[in-house]
C-alpha cells in the first residue's frame, strides 16, 4: 500500500547542466499541484536557483523533491553537508555588503529565498535539507456583513470544513472582532479552507436551529506535542457560546498526541476553563498609540512527570520562576562552552505577521556569526517597521540555549515559557526596543 502523499523525486548531480530538468519538473509540478502560471514560474526559479547554488557549492549528489502542501507547493533539496554556507537564506542577508569583494556565490540562494513564501532548513546527521515553499495566489473576496445574533434553540457543535462555512466564519470574525485578534489567514478564506482541508488547521463551529453560525474556534498543531488555538470567536449577543467552544476544543485535542494547548490569539479570559495565564504581551501596533495586550493562556493536556531542559545563566532565573509557578519539574542543565567547531554562517528562520507588526525569529542553523546575525535581523526588521520582535528557542537543544548570552546582549528578554511547545519546552524572548 502506498501511504505517502504524491511527490516528485529527482536524484541528480549538483551540476548546472541539469538545470533544464529541474526547471521542467518544477514547471509541471507547479501546474499539476495547483499553482497559477505566475506562481509556477516562481517555483521554477526557486528550484533552478537552488540547484545553481548547490552546484557552485559543489555539494555532489543531491535529491530534489517537489510536493504539494496545504497552500501551495514545496521544493526541497537534500545533500550531504560539508560546511555549505546557507547564510544567504537569512532575511537580513546581504551578500554584496563587501562591495565588489562581496561573496556572490550565494546570490542564487538569495534570489531563491526572496521568491518564496517560506522556507525551512534541516540538518539530520551529516545530511542537510533546504525546503522552499511557494503559495497559491488566493483571491480576496469581499467579506459578508456580520452582526451579533441571538441563537434559536440550543446550538449544535460540529467540525467545520466546508469552504462556504469557513468564509462565513472569516467574515464574522473580521466584522465582529478587532483586527489584532483576527488570524491573518481569515482575510483569505480560500487559504483558510485549504488549511482545514489539509488538516493543518482544525475548527469547531456552533450553529443554531436556524443554521446560523453562532461561533467558531480554530486550532493547529504547533509541534508534535503542542496545539495552539485562535478564539473562541463568539458571535452571539450574550457570549453564551465561548465556553462550549473551549470545552469542545479540549475534548477534541485531549486524546491526541498533543500534551499542551495554548492560545495564539485569545479573545477572552480562560481561567474558568482551567487555563493558566502564561504571559501578557503588550503589542505595539502601527495604528494605535497605546499597546494592546495579548494574553497567552495555556494548559497541559496530559500528565507531566518531569523532563530535562537546557538553560543559560541569562535566563535561568526566569525559567526557575516559571517552572515553580506551573508546578513543573525540570532538570535544568546549564550549557557550557565546549570549544567545539561550528560553521561560519548561521541561519535564522522568520515568521512575519505584518498586521500585528510581529516577527517570530527562530534558529535554523548554528554558526559562528549567530550573535551578529541576530543583531542584523533586529536592525533590518526594526527598519522595516516591525515593532514586536520575538525570538524562540527550544530547550531540548543545547545550542539553542547557548544563544542566551547573544539574545540578552541584543536586547531580548525572556517573556513566555511554553511547556512542550516544541521538541521540549519553548522559551520566547521579546526584543525590548529601548535597549
Amino acid at each position, binding site marked *: *500500500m*502506498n*501511504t*505517502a502523499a504524491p511527490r516528485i523525486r529527482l536524484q541528480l548531480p549538483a551540476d548546472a547542466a541539469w538545470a533544464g530538468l529541474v526547471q521542467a519538473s518544477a514547471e509541471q509540478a507547479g501546474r499539476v499541484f495547483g499553482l497559477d502560471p505566475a506562481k509556477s514560474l516562481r517555483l521554477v526559479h526557486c528550484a533552478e536557483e537552488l540547484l545553481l547554488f548547490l552546484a557552485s557549492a559543489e555539494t555532489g549528489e543531491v535529491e530534489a523533491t517537489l510536493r504539494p502542501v496545504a497552500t501551495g507547493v514545496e521544493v526541497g533539496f537534500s545533500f550531504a553537508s560539508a560546511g555549505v554556507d546557507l547564510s544567504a537564506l537569512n532575511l537580513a542577508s546581504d551578500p554584496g555588503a563587501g562591495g565588489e569583494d562581496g561573496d556572490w556565490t550565494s546570490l542564487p540562494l538569495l534570489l531563491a529565498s526572496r521568491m518564496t513564501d517560506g522556507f525551512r532548513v534541516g540538518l*539530520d*546527521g551529516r*545530511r542537510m535539507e533546504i525546503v522552499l515553499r511557494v503559495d497559491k495566489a488566493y483571491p480576496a473576496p469581499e467579506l459578508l456583513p456580520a452582526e451579533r445574533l441571538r441563537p434559536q434553540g440550543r446550538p449544535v457543535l460540529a467540525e467545520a470544513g466546508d469552504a462556504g462555512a469557513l468564509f462565513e466564519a472569516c467574515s464574522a470574525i473580521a466584522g465582529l472582532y478587532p483586527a489584532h485578534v483576527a488570524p491573518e489567514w481569515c482575510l483569505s478564506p480560500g487559504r483558510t479552507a485549504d488549511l482545514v482541508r489539509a488538516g493543518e488547521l482544525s475548527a469547531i463551529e456552533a450553529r443554531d436551529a436556524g443554521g446560523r453560525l453562532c461561533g467558531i474556534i480554530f486550532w493547529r498543531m504547533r509541534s508534535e506535542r503542542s496545539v495552539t488555538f485562535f478564539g473562541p470567536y463568539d458571535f452571539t449577543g450574550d457570549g453564551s457560546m465561548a465556553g462550549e467552544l473551549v*470545552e469542545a476544543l*479540549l*475534548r477534541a485535542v*485531549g*486524546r*491526541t*498526541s498533543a500534551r499542551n494547548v495554548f492560545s495564539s490569539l485569545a479573545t477572552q479570559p480562560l481561567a474558568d*476553563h*482551567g*487555563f*493558566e495565564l502564561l504571559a501578557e504581551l503588550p503589542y505595539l501596533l502601527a495604528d494605535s498609540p497605546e499597546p494592546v495586550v495579548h494574553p497567552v493562556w495555556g*494548559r*497541559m*493536556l*496530559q*500528565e*507531566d*512527570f*518531569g523532563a530535562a531542559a537546557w538553560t543559560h545563566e541569562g535566563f535561568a532565573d526566569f525559567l526557575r520562576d516559571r517552572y515553580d509557578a*506551573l*508546578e*513543573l*519539574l525540570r532538570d535544568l542543565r546549564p550549557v557550557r562552552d565546549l570549544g567545539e567547531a561550528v560553521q561560519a554562517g548561521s541561519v535564522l528562520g522568520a515568521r512575519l505577521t505584518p498586521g500585528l507588526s510581529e516577527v517570530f525569529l527562530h534558529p535554523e542553523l548554528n554558526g559562528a556569526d549567530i550573535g551578529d546575525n541576530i543583531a542584523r535581523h533586529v536592525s533590518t526588521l526594526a527598519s522595516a517597521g516591525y515593532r514586536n520582535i520575538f525570538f524562540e528557542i527550544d530547550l531540548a537543544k543545547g545550542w539553542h540555549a547557548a544563544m542566551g548570552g547573544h539574545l540578552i546582549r541584543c536586547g531580548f528578554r525572556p517573556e513566555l515559557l511554553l511547556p512542550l511547545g516544541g521538541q521540549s519546552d519553548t522559551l520566547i524572548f521579546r526584543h525590548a526596543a529601548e535597549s
Partner: protein
Amino acid sequence: MPLNLEHLIPEHIRLFDPYRPSPPDAELMRLYGLKRLHRLNNNENTLGPSPAVRELLAGLEAGVIPVYPHGDSQDLRETLARTLGPDRSQFLVGNGSCELISSVVKAFCEPGDNIVTADKTFAVYEWVATFSGVEARLIPLDRDQRFDPDAMLAAVDDRTKLAFVCNPNNPTGTYWDEATMRRFLDGVDGRCIVVADEAYFEYVERPDYPDCIRLLDDYPNLVVFRTFSKMYALAALRVGYLCAGEAVTDVIGRAHVAYSVNTPAQMAARAALLDRSPFIERTRAMVRRGRELIRETCEALGFEHIIGEGNYVMIRTPISDTLLQRKLLRRGFLVRTMTGFRFPNWIRVSLEREPVLREFCSVFRSLFE
C-alpha cells in the same frame, strides 16, 4: 544510509499517538523528592491479593518458570466454568483485557469496518480500532453520563462489527441495568458483536445490574469481558478473560496469541476464584467508605463529583486537571487526569484504604481552602 520509514508506515499508525505510562514509583519518588507515593490513578485494589493468592505466590516453586504455561489456560478455564456456569470452551483467557480487546478487533474487523462505543470511556477500544485502521464511532454519553443506547443503535450500520459497552463505565461508574442491556441487544438484533466489558463487575452491588454471562444463551452475539486486575488485585500478573457463545469464542481464539498468559498468573487467577475468604466483602466495604469520604470532601468544597459503581470516583475542580495532578504529585498522591477521557478539568481518584484516602482528602482540601 538514513532510514526512511515514511513510505513503510500505514497512515493510521503514523498518526497514532502511543500510550505513555507513568514512570516507575521509585523514579517518581526520586524526581519529586517523596518519601512515599500513593497511586490513586489505576483503580488497583491495594488490599489484595486475597489470602489464598498470597499463600500460593509465597510457595511458588522456581521449577514452574522454565516450563511453558498452558497455551490456552485450560485449568483456569475449567475453574471459570465450574465457578460461573458456561462450558470451558466458551472462555478465552488473555494477558489482561487489553489483549482480549485486540483479539476481538482482529477477529472481526478489517479496514473499512467500524466499531461503536462511547466518547468518554475506557480508551483502549478506540485505540485498538484506530491503530488497526478501523473507524471508531464515538457516541456522546447521555446527560446522566451513561452510554446512550439509542444513539449507539443509530450509529450501527452494515460495516459495524463491534459495539463496546463498558458496564459499569470507566470513568463515570454509570451502568446499564438489565432491561437497558436487553433492549440494546434486541435493537442490535445480531447485526454485530456486542462486547460488555465488566472489568468492575465484582464491585457493583446494585440489584438491577446485569450479569451478562447469564444473558449469553439469549444473545449469541454477546461477548463478556472480565479481569483479575481489579477486584482480584492481580494487576501485575496481567490476566483477564472473555466468555461468549462457543462459536464466537472459537472465532476470537483464531486471532488470539496462545501462551500469552504465564503460569503464575494462571495459578493465581484460579486461586483467587476459589478463595472463599471475606476478601471481596472487605474490599467492597473499603470502597463504600471511600465513597463517603470523597463525597464529604467534595460537598464541603462545593465541587461537582460523580460517584458511581467501581472503585473510583470523579471530581471536577476549578483548575486544570493536569495542574492539579502535578500539585498532588508533589504531595505524594498520583491521580488520573481526565482530559484524555474527554472530561477536561476532572480527575479520577481510586478508592483506597481509609487512612490513605483521609490523608488525600486533607491534602486535597488544603489546596482549595
